[in-house]
């Protein structure tokens, strides 16, 4: 039931066609699976293994390397509050405490209505804007307690639904590469001639 649905199978096959080896498509396919269910389900990993010809264990091995793939249900909005040095100095601890109070869950927990999952995060690479947080990987800078309350209220009311899609949606506009615009990469072991850049000036 949580395998890819028919529409997503079509997209998956299109993604796979962009790569010389099917298994190279695993990461974008995992994003697709996460987009469908909000997290990567066990059945979806089995399905992806079938689609690209690797075992479920290999899919899980690849997926579990990346922090962004979640294997348990998460809220519609995943709120990651940075706790690394600059943010910590600028009050991230207090912000987290406030967030826990506001949402009524501890860091790592999900609210009962399934709207929010609150989590710690390591450095988000915006130290000059500390403290920072991300909602479904969209940045918020120099976050105060009241900023946080406004953010939560806006998310709840749907005022931000254009800007921040639900968890798992990487981009609202899906990149489509028409067949004639693909790079047409072929697997190295199947290559019969040198890549263009090796032909020196002739390649220009």
């Amino acid at each position, binding site marked *: 039931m949580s395998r890819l649905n028919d529409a997503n199978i079509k997209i998956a096959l299109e993604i796979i066609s962009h790569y010389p080896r099917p298994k190279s498509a695993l990461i974008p396919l995992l994003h697709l699976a996460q987009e469908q269910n909000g997290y990567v389900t066990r059945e979806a990993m089995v399905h992806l293994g079938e689609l690209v010809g690797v075992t479920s264990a290999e899919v*899980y091995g690849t997926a579990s390397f990346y922090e962004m793939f979640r294997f348990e249900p998460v809220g519609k909005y995943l709120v990651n509050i940075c706790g690394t040095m600059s943010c910590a100095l600028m009050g991230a601890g207090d912000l987290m405490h406030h967030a826990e109070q506001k949402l009524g869950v501890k860091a790592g927990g999900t609210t009962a209505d399934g709207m929010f999952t609150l989590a710690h995060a390591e450095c988000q690479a915006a130290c000059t804007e500390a403290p920072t947080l991300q909602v479904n990987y969209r940045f918020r800078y120099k976050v105060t307690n009241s900023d946080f309350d406004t953010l939560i209220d806006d998310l709840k009311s749907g005022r931000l639904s254009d800007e921040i899609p639900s968890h798992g949606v990487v981009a609202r506009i899906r990149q489509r590469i028409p067949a004639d615009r693909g790079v047409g990469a072929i697997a190295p072991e199947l290559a019969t001639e040198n890549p263009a850049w090796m032909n020196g000036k002739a390649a220009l």
Partner: protein
Amino acid sequence: MTTLDSSDTTPEVVVDPNAVSVTINGKVVAARKGEMIIAAADRTDDFIPRFCYHPRMEPVGMCRQCLVEVVGPRGPMMVVSCMTPVADGQVVNTATEGVKKAQEGMLELLLANHPLDCPVCDKGGECPLQDQAFSHGPGESRFVEEKRHYEKPIAISENVYLDRERCILCDRCTRFADEVAGDALISFTSRGNNTQVMTFPDEPFSSYFSGNTVQICPVGALTAKPYRFKARPWDIEHVESTCTTCSVGCRTVVQSSRDELVRYQGVDSQPVNWGWLCDKGRFNFESINSKDRLTTPLIKDASGNLSATSWSVAIDSAARMVRTALLSSPQSVAIIGGARGTNEDAFAWAQLANALGVDSRDSQLADGLPPQVFSLPQATIADIDTAKTIILLAPDLKEELPVLYLRVRRAAEKRTGRVVEVSPRATGLAGKAWKKVHVEPGKTAAALRALSTDAAFTAQLASGSVVVIVGRMNLAESEESVVYALAEVLHMAPHATVLPVLRRANVRGAITAGLTPRNGGKSTAEILEAAAAGKIECLVLLGADPLSDVPDADLARRGISGARNIIAIDTFITQSSALADIVLPAAAYGEKEGTTTNIEGRISNVAQSITPVGTSRPDWMIAVELGAATSHDLGFASYNEVHAAMISGVSEFASAVDTHAVEHDGVIVAHPTPITLTRADGASIERNSYDYRAVVSRKLYDNAIGTAKSPSLATLGVASAIIVNPLDVPRIGAQVGESVRVTSPRGTIVMPLQESVDVLRGTAWLPINLGGSDVRELLDVTKDVIDLKIEKMS
């Protein structure tokens, strides 16, 4: 190559373009381009410490323990020797102060999280980490923090346990599973400090080769259930031997402690198994320790029950039975079996049969091929590595000859050769096959003949050497059909060599030693038919169990019940030996010494590790005793004498005189002048489209006695079922999983219906000898093919 003046008479010096010369610790070492420094260094006396490097797998540079210095233009540079190829003139130092410091540093880091629980760890005493911590470690650690903790150990399969605290993430087990076995059911999961080896959630590491990961684990992270806490390495006695579970003949070390077998380990034998074993061969030592083993001779008492007796009474009674039968005619005595013992066992029994004039002896149980296949140009297992084409006209290698499967799989994976699968269903190698000739039984020869017009196929055959692996791929199809198919292949590729894969470990040795019909003697099927007709006075079952092994239940039943007297030589009470008049307990594998002959005709030794259980004796000794009791002196009375008599008496075994070779990689038997096979008319046997043509083959874990009596293996088998193509399921009208009635001209059985795309439409695959309904009830060894009706139960 050096250029020479034409007037110079010195022969031209041919320099191997791949030869390079490197200097390791001041010593010049010859190496080949592409070889890694560590492999070249292994040919010197200097040892480079390592954990992840394994000579039979691709290097990964995971553990960083093998750091050495390579001298470059900017001075010495630290490199990992398992990932750095040799280069001509390279100067490598493996023991400088800098190298020592680097290696000590690596070990200190590896030991940061590794628990120091060696006294309670099964690996302690034979642990590469423990050993190299002493030889190349810093002696003490600066690490005072808490170590990483995990639940320990967790079962990742029925027989393999994983202790993640001890794991040093060398990637050996995961690489083996993916690269060698092709069962990537374990993988690194998570990242950084949390990285661990893990299966997919709730999906066990159920690989036929899982035990190898335990053997190559350089720490105590992976342990095997059958060995856990059974013995300590320093209490173990080792003997090098040959596995006799199947006919591949993998080299092993048989290990025992306190006169009990505790473990088998694979030995890296270049021509055979490269150190790998299958789990069935690795763990079935449990059956030899079984409480159910026969320990004393049994004789049928007045009430018809088998009861214990002495050897003298048993041998005298057996001799009387044989003598009485011989009085009526030598044709009324027959011997079935002998392929489970050693060459010496088979030789002694063949000598006894010769002395008694018994011509009806057969070590194949109506499931083999004519011995003439040994007279075709023979291939060796190693020929698979260099063959351009490997034609599988054989049973599913993954199920029946697992370690041979690894070798063929590697050839396909490394693209050294192309695999052509000729089979009635997709086998374990289908995914690696260049060409699949899936054809329903009865039409194989015709399909192959049609291939002779396939230009791509004939060009492939002409491109280089061809190895044909030939055996009974379908027990519901006659042996003639295999011979005809083989004749077609050899007609298309006259330069092909043949690797005959007959069933049972030492079948080739037994046939070579003489346990095959001679002078018009009867084969197993003929013996059983004669017995059913009341013409067999005395039937000797030499480690054979026709009632559960002959692929024709009705014939076996009629034969066993029709034989007047049965003498069984066996290790267990089996279905057949339970009906014998006299049962003589035989010494099992590990309890006797001898030699065995594998599929390629390689003679290698099997060694004695423990005392035979009870009063059991090797088969050859029983033959000698029975000979003496029937007034025939066979001319040998000790193992050395029977071995010597065999080498001088059987010309094919003459090469076994090289004892050193026999006790290591083995020697190949001499084989007779090549014959040619005649092609049949190529007619195929048509099928009524309402019927399903039977495909009967074996799975690795079946009810074979060695598996059934090994607790660690006995639970791994599946129940019998009839498996059809998914597109045929609606036609049958029953649901998948539902019981259906299966009828052949021979009989009717009821079994669950299953589907698989590996099965051709119009055929039905029935794995044999599993729990549940007995497939053999449907089979008839006299028929070329068996057609089945499958009906929904009303």
